């Protein structure tokens, strides 16, 4: 019986240790020299276990080689040629996955005019004028009821407020959250609330409400003044940095119970990850900083193209190296992109879908239409129901069937698919006009970045395994 290598990605830690990231199980194992030699030999061509014993007989006993082969077979790092691993099928989740997070687009209005905005900019999906500009109280309350119904037995639900600029509808936020907390208490469910804001309207009264209601806050901010004011401007072109800075400082000083995160949009003109991070984490004092490349069609002037992706990767890798130093030294580091990926690697997540959109997470438009996520809220083509009539489960099933990783042929030979699963639906829709398409423009980037995170993971496993134990 000839043996053949199965799918995996080999990587190293900081020392001489070798690791395998197995695909599609997403298991991570450390291998010894013998197992490495077995895999290395099979890389040159299929061989039987008997041949392997002979090939490696100068260094290892037959018993050792056979044990190693058995172990590699058991973990599916190799397989017998006659029995290749089964092809994954696009199956529905085995258990019903309840709705856990509902994102309410409480308004489609915004007081900023960021040049790259996906909601208002050149790549917008929904014509804002066709929908009410603000979500009213009745729709918000109905959304809360919808969340509790769809959440089934889950003890916790997440209610997230989003915009437009979320705080332009502050009055409604207060009543909606009060109602959610009241209903949650009656139903014995915890309501975890959060919001995203551009921080222009964060006045004391609002901060009071955020603090007393334990609301998690993410601030959209692109870095220091010069970086922020490049795109994040008011309609008259005036930059927003000087307006938001005192507001953010006030929020950070007073809101101590929940971490306040910064969310940075990277563009072709703003890729200096190190300086952005330094400003937001060290100088302003955000708990963590998450970066995301702008979602855009390729021809926009702020789009990140090949060279930019390389710059971005180098920047991410340098900051990731800082993250590793901090983790090894027992210091907290706020580069959330790494921490989130390490957690996914540690749990061995092997995704059938790139994210929870349309599954455990949905977005609600101002009129109560329910869509895949907040980025599609209001789009009829991506509608999954309404908060008044519930989820259209036939439509949801159809969506899940079409978007399963097993149906993304381009991803079928990529070792990074357990973590990437094709990438953001909205990004794909903006780039390729369809949510079904995998985001092929950043495949190389994703693989390089995933490899960096795996190397950090391996180094931590070797040198400071207790850091990883926090994810258990």
């Amino acid at each position, binding site marked *: *019986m000839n043996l053949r290598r199965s799918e995996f990605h080999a990587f190293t830690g900081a020392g001489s240790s070798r*690791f395998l990231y*197995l695909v599609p*199980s*997403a*298991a*991570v*194992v*450390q*291998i*010894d020299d*013998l*197992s490495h030699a077995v895999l290395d030999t099979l890389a040159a061509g299929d061989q039987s*276990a008997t041949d392997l014993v002979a090939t490696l007989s100068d260094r290892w006993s*037959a*018993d*050792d080689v*056979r*044990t*190693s082969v*058995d*172990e*590699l077979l*058991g*973990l599916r790092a190799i397989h*017998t040629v*006659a*029995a290749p691993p089964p092809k994954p099928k696009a199956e529905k989740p085995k258990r019903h996955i309840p709705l856990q997070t509902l994102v309410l687009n409480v308004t489609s209005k915004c007081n900023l005019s960021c040049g790259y905005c996906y909601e208002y900019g050149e790549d917008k999906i929904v014509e804002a004028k066709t929908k009410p500009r603000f979500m009213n109280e009745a729709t918000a309350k109905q959304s809360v009821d919808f969340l509790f119904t769809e959440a089934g037995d889950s003890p916790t639900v997440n209610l997230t407020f989003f915009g437009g600029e979320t705080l332009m509808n502050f009055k409604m936020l207060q009543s909606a959250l009060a109602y959610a907390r009241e209903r949650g208490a009656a139903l014995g469910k915890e309501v975890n609330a959060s919001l995203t804001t551009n921080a222009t309207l964060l006045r004391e009264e609002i901060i009071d409400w955020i603090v007393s209601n334990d609301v998690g806050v993410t601030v959209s901010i692109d870095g220091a003044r010069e970086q922020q004011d490049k795109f994040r401007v008011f309609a008259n072109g005036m930059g927003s940095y000087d307006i938001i800075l005192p507001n953010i400082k006030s929020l950070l000083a007073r809101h101590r119970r929940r971490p306040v995160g910064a969310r940075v949009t990277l563009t072709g003109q703003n890729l200096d990850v190190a300086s952005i991070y330094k400003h937001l984490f060290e100088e302003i004092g955000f708990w963590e900083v998450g970066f995301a490349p702008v979602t855009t069609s390729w021809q926009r002037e702020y789009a990140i193209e090949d060279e930019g992706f390389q710059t971005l990767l180098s920047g991410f890798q340098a900051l990731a190296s800082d993250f590793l130093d901090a983790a090894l030294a027992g210091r907290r580091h706020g580069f959330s992109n790494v921490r989130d990926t390490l957690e996914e*690697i*540690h*749990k*061995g997540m*092997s995704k059938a879908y790139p994210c929870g959109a349309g599954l455990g997470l949905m977005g609600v438009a101002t009129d109560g239409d329910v869509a895949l996520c907040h980025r599609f809220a209001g789009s009829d083509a991506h509608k999954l129901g309404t908060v008044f009539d519930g989820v259209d489960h036939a439509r949801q099933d159809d969506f899940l069937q079409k978007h399963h990783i097993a149906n993304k042929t381009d991803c079928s030979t990529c070792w990074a698919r357990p973590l990437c699963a094709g990438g953001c639906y909205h990004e794909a829709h903006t780039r390729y006009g369809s949510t079904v398409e995998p985001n092929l423009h950043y495949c190389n980037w994703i693989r390089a970045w995933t490899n960096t995170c795996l190397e950090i*993971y*391996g180094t931590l*496993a070797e040198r400071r395994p207790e850091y*990883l134990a926090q*994810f*258990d």
Partner: protein
Amino acid sequence: MRHLKAINQKARHIQSIIDNDVVALQQGGPPQGPHVPLGCSFVFSPGWEVDSNGGTAGLCQPVERDLFDCHLTCFWPAHVPDLYNHAPDWTAKCASAQKDWRKIDLIFP
């Protein structure tokens, strides 16, 4: 595992499954010497149980072959007569399973 070390949760989970797995023909204790896998689960028989459409009309092997797949490629003594000791000739009259399966002898212990 001697040569691999499970690092993340998924690897530990897979290891726990492997450690508790049933190994055919093994009575207690870990395998002594090289473990030679036996059994039909290691043999790839396409078109054996269902055809490409999920039915039985287009099987590339007749269903009657099941019998032989159990007694030649598998050691599955409870299901077929003992070919090696007790009933070496039990299929002697059956040249082609598809045509002759009715001629297979009944075997009584």
